[in-house]
């Protein structure tokens, strides 16, 4: 990749703890926060957090967001934004305090359906992916019940599981998920990629042939290893 500028802008999905405010009184909030931090100090230390106002509704009009921000910082956390603000007044005061006004997102504290079902289902290919074919899965995992032959390409935002040989190209975590992996019953790929890291395999490693293996990203390096 050529570096045409010093900064590369990319989208990323992060899971952040959400502080759900149940009171607009700063003293009560301070006590509550300190109590939480004692329960799990390591979890909250320097953790970026989002403040949620949903339970306060228009009571949040009286909140001093500058003081609230300081209070959260004192507790050792890094407040990045506030969500569920009502009306332009609340929003402008949040912005004045140097916090982001956030919208959308699903709260974990009110799970309507289990978390797992909100992920797109895995796509299953019943058979081999052949030369010239291209399979792309947006959002989820890909499962191939066959081989991925030379000249074939499979791409998934999640993991890729191949119940056969990988002889073609495979890219897992296509939207940047570096934890995604590629699994196959035999690793003899032409090209493998995870996120934006890719590896051209000119001579497949004989030691990986004919046994189950995995491709993963470790410290920014692609590793092909037997299972």
């Amino acid at each position, binding site marked *: 990749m050529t570096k045409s500028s010093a900064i590369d802008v990319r989208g990323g999905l992060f899971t952040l703890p959400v502080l759900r405010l149940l009171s607009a009184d700063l003293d009560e909030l301070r006590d509550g926060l300190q109590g939480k931090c004692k329960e799990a100090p390591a979890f909250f230390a320097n953790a970026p957090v989002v403040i949620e106002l949903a339970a306060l509704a228009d009571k949040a009009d009286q909140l001093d967001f500058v003081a609230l921000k300081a209070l959260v910082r004192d507790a050792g956390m890094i407040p990045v934004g506030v969500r569920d603000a009502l009306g332009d007044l609340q929003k402008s005061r949040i912005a004045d305090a140097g916090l982001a006004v956030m919208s959308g997102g699903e709260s974990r504290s009110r799970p309507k359906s289990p978390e797992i079902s909100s992920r797109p289902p895995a796509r299953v290919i019943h058979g081999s992916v052949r030369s*010239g*074919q291209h399979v792309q899965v947006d959002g989820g995992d890909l499962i191939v019940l066959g081989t991925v032959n030379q000249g074939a390409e499979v791409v998934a935002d999640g993991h890729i599981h191949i119940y056969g040989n990988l002889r073609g190209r495979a890219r897992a975590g296509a939207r940047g998920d570096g934890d995604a992996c590629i699994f196959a019953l035999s690793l003899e790929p032409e090209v493998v990629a995870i996120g934006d890291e890719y590896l051209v395999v000119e001579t497949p490693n004989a030691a990986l042939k004919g046994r189950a293996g995995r491709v993963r990203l470790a410290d920014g390096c692609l590793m092909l290893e037997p299972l």
Partner: protein
Amino acid sequence: MAKIVVITSGKGGVGKTTTSAAFATGLAQAGFKTVVIDFDVGLRNLDLVMGCERRVVYDFVNVINGEAKLNQALIKDKRVNGLAVLPASQTRDKDALNKEGVRKVLDELAESFDYIVCDSPAGIEVGAQMAMYFADAAIVVTNPEVSSVRDSDRMLGILASKSRRAENNEDPIEEHLLLTRYSAARVDKGEMLSVDDVLDILNIDLLGVIPESQAVLNASNSGTPVILDEDSDAGQAYHDMVARFLGEEREHRFLTTEKKGLLRRLFGS
């Protein structure tokens, strides 16, 4: 209901036309009314291999264009009962074929034949896609070398996605592999892929292995489908392949070199 079988490969010169002629003849010998169609518009080879080139008056394209009736274009084989050839045009190009026209001709043939064998041109373009589009079964002809196997893999992908069956979400096309021009001696020397190597990549039913044989060249030159040369290795291999296609179980032959065969005979095992 007639069964439509396409003989296809992707790569050129691997033995599609040789196979189409032998396979169609074998089906007719087994008592099935069979027509073999030359889809290689512009080249026209099948009539030569079938030995009926002098009897071609009208062709496939004439029938599609309504310039001739199907019966005027069909050539009945003089050696085998129930076998007919629908020759290709030599003067048109592949664009003369269109789906609707091909469908009409196939529908009409289906009224009077049990099997319709389509000899596909090489490549994966319009001509080849037209030959495979309506197929119920495909015989993928492959030589034991890397580029032929790769092209067959490609063709299998197209069969699975661009056929009438795929587009209508029906059962997929039945896939069979026919390895041709197989030379056990060259496999032993490592100059050719073995049956196992090819199966490992393509992973479909193996219908047969046709050895590299002088008999094929002799047969083409005399305009006789090689399956009629009953004494030849290739002729027998084609007989086996037809029998397997019709559901019979037969062991694969011609997979090992002569030398091994001799040793086996000497030691009686």
